[in-house]
């Protein structure tokens, strides 16, 4: 594999500003990078594309000194580069511009630019030389084309201008290598054009850049070379001109991994003649919230597994939060079993809704509490006796014990153990068990298998199907196209807060699905 990519690689010169050679990295036995090699020359922009989970962010963390490779070497200007932390990366002239910006909104632009080493006044006094700070900041802002007073607090800037400040910060640190990670996600089209012009200018100044993005059109337009990652391997590399949009997409999704997903036949019984006509269990009509989602309408039939696909930040999780009553929605209506769904989450749970969130640690579990307490939390009320809502803890232990077996929780874990001590897969099974105990009519799963090993993944898929077969409606939100294609009966694709495509099992077309997620609907 490495050899073949070397052959295809166009950037194998020793003059590369940064070069990866046979990088291998795994987490708790799961390989994430399996021998990645490519280089970035000074004055070039390399586009790095791949599905979520292909290994892009791991690669960036290696370069930033947050992780260390299991095997392989990174070279910086031809010399071996083994960063022990973010400071080493900074010293080596490597800077990052992340999707989530690392700025302090309570400080001014100038202060953010020079937070680590302010220009000092004369005589080694600890005062900031405000004149020099302003002059240096203005020079940097001029370079990135941001016409703002450096004393402006960052919290007053729109997202696009914050992005420019972040780039100015990289330039101020004398970065010779800049990595952009999804820089355009929160930018308007004007702001995006400004960013592209800036990238072109930096290229002329001899700065090496890596540009990570799902916006494939932008990548092809902006980059000199493109590297395609899939499952931790380089599956395509070369000059941007040698790719087109469709080829990139097919390289990105190429794999088939059938045995991971339980068999799922195209569903016919909801349209079959003679079958009992079942109404939709969940109806969403015209739900909009300014700036978040617009005009979302769909129906979910009992027994159906509905996938919602799209890129990160497409509004999928936000839609789920609206369904569950965690965030407000402006217009539109949600109905469960034909009746309007209203009120706080507790009320919706009693009506038969359940929600496995994407943030397992922050919102799914009480990490320090026991397995039993976590699993029982959503259904405790049904095990109480009046007066005083006395808890029947024997009944709780009994049903939790049964559910532990049903979700195949590791038998080593004791019910009183804190969930913090469990692996990611087992933690997710605890959350899933919590919701299965509630016997929901509609279960919404947001990124149910993120950060989970293959074995637990497949078990979770089987649980999802079993729940659907028992007559519940299931919504699976996932960034991994393979996952929704593998387990869903029907898939909705979202982009920029709206539904941009609908596909049924039997008519799944990965390229069209990805296109719906990536391409803006023509106005």
């Amino acid at each position: 594999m490495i050899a073949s990519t070397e052959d295809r690689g166009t950037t194998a010169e020793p003059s590369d500003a940064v070069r990866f050679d046979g990088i291998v990295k795994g987490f708790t036995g799961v390989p994430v990078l399996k021998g990645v090699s490519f280089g970035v020359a000074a004055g070039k922009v390399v586009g790095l594309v791949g599905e979520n989970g292909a290994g892009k962010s791991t690669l960036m963390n290696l370069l930033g000194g947050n992780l260390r490779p299991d095997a392989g070497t990174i070279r910086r200007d031809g010399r071996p580069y083994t960063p022990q932390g973010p400071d080493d990366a900074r010293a080596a002239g490597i800077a990052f511009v992340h999707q989530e910006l690392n700025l302090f909104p309570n400080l001014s632009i100038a202060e953010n630019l020079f937070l680590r080493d302010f220009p000092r006044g004369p005589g080694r006094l600890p005062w900031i030389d405000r004149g020099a700070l302003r002059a240096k900041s203005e020079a940097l802002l001029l370079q990135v084309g941001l016409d703002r007073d450096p004393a402006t607090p960052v919290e007053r800037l729109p997202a696009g201008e914050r992005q420019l400040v972040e780039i100015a910060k990289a330039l101020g640190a004398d970065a010779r290598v800049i990595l952009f990670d999804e820089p355009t996600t929160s930018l308007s089209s004007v702001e995006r054009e400004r960013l592209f012009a800036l990238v072109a200018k930096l290229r002329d100044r001899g700065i090496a850049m890596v540009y990570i993005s799902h916006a494939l059109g932008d990548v092809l337009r902006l980059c000199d070379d493109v590297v395609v990652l899939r499952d931790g391997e380089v599956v395509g590399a070369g000059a941007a001109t040698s790719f087109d949009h469709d080829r990139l997409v097919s390289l990105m999704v190429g794999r088939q991994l059938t045995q991971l997903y339980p068999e799922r036949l195209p569903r016919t019984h909801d349209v079959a003649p003679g079958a009992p006509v079942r109404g939709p269990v969940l109806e969403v009509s015209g739900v909009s919230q300014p700036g978040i989602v617009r005009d979302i309408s769909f129906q979910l039939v009992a027994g159906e597994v509905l996938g919602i696909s799209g890129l990160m930040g497409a509004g999928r999780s936000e839609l789920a939060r609206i369904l569950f009553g965690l965030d407000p929605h402006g217009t539109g209506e949600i109905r469960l079993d034909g009746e309007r769904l209203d009120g706080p989450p507790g009320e919706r749970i009693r009506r038969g809704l359940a929600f496995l969130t994407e943030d397992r640690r922050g919102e799914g579990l009480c990490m320090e509490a026991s397995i039993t307490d976590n699993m029982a939390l959503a259904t405790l009320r049904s095990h109480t006796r009046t007066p005083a809502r006395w808890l029947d803890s024997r009944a709780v232990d009994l049903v939790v014990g049964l559910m532990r077996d049903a979700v195949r929780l590791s038998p080593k874990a004791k019910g009183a153990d804190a969930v913090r001590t469990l692996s990611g897969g087992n933690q997710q099974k605890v959350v899933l068990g919590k919701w299965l105990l509630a016997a929901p009519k509609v279960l919404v799963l947001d990124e149910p298998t993120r950060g989970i090993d293959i074995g637990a993944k497949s078990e979770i898929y089987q649980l999802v199907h079993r729940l659907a077969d028992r007559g519940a409606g299931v919504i699976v939100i996932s960034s991994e196209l393979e996952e929704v294609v593998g387990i869903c009966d029907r898939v909705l694709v979202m982009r920029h807060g709206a539904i941009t495509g609908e596909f049924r099992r039997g008519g799944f077309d990965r390229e069209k699905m990805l296109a719906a997620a990536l391409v803006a609907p023509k106005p």
Partner: protein
Amino acid sequence: MTSAGTIGGRGSRSVARILGSGHFGLVLCLMAAVAFAPVAPGFLSSGNLANILVGALPLLVLATGQTIVLVTGGIDLSVTAVIGLASIVGALVMGGEHGWMRGSPMAMPVGIAAMLGTGATIGFLNGFCVARLRMPAFMVTLVATMTFGGLAVWLVKQAAGVESIYGLPASFLALGSRPALAACLAVLATVAAHLLLGRTLLGRWFHAVGHNPRASLISGVPVGRVTVAAYVVSGIFAALASVLITARLETGSPNHGKALLLDVIGAAVIGGTSLSGGRGKVVWTVHGVLFLALLGNGMDLLNVSDFLVTIAKGAVILVAALLDVWRRRLAIDAE
């Protein structure tokens, strides 16, 4: 890091496990008993022990209520103000020259109800500000201390024109003069709190909210109402402590219980209740209260001046808090 270096050893790890397992307070009590028994004259006499227990009753009730708020991840500094205001309200209802129900046989029950109602009201206001207005519990209850403490002083001046109110009905004073009665009341309340926290739906919800309010909300826990309930319980328990103190001192005064705040939080923390929420038991708090009572009494018998008692209490709180950090770090390291 020096601390990590000295406490990272295997031997100290098992020590940490014992001390962090929730029996730290009990171990401390035993240590205090063993230390004082030979040197303090009459420390282990039944009379002295009874003294210790009866003297600790108000603190027991207060710290128990506080434990529930701490379990939800909050803090209630306003308990001392509740004691003062409830004391005045009760005294204004029951006795003095201007008592509204002076001489009536219903004075005692109505008075106690008014005191508990005062506590519940202040607790509700605290809870409302914390849960609905999302204000920091520390500041909310601090302001409540100031405001309601001031209100108590103003009220007693305004209504009675004196600093403190005497002449409470005999049926009420019996709570102070007959220790068994007071003990019954306090123990009953403590047991009720123990059962509430450990055996009921609301108790589990208190823990869940303290562990992770967001996860609790998503699991259908009515986080707002649960939080308010915790402060209401704390307010009622503070009012009950006020009943005990007012009866024992035979006066209604806005100054009752002013010095107790640090002991209240100290007792809970020494017992092992975590200030970051989710972890706490009434039994632990009982240990903490008992320890502070033993320490105070033992040093009293030894004629140790009160400033040394204060220093010792501070040091013990520090050690308890260090153990809490230490235990959590070991738990994380063990992964």
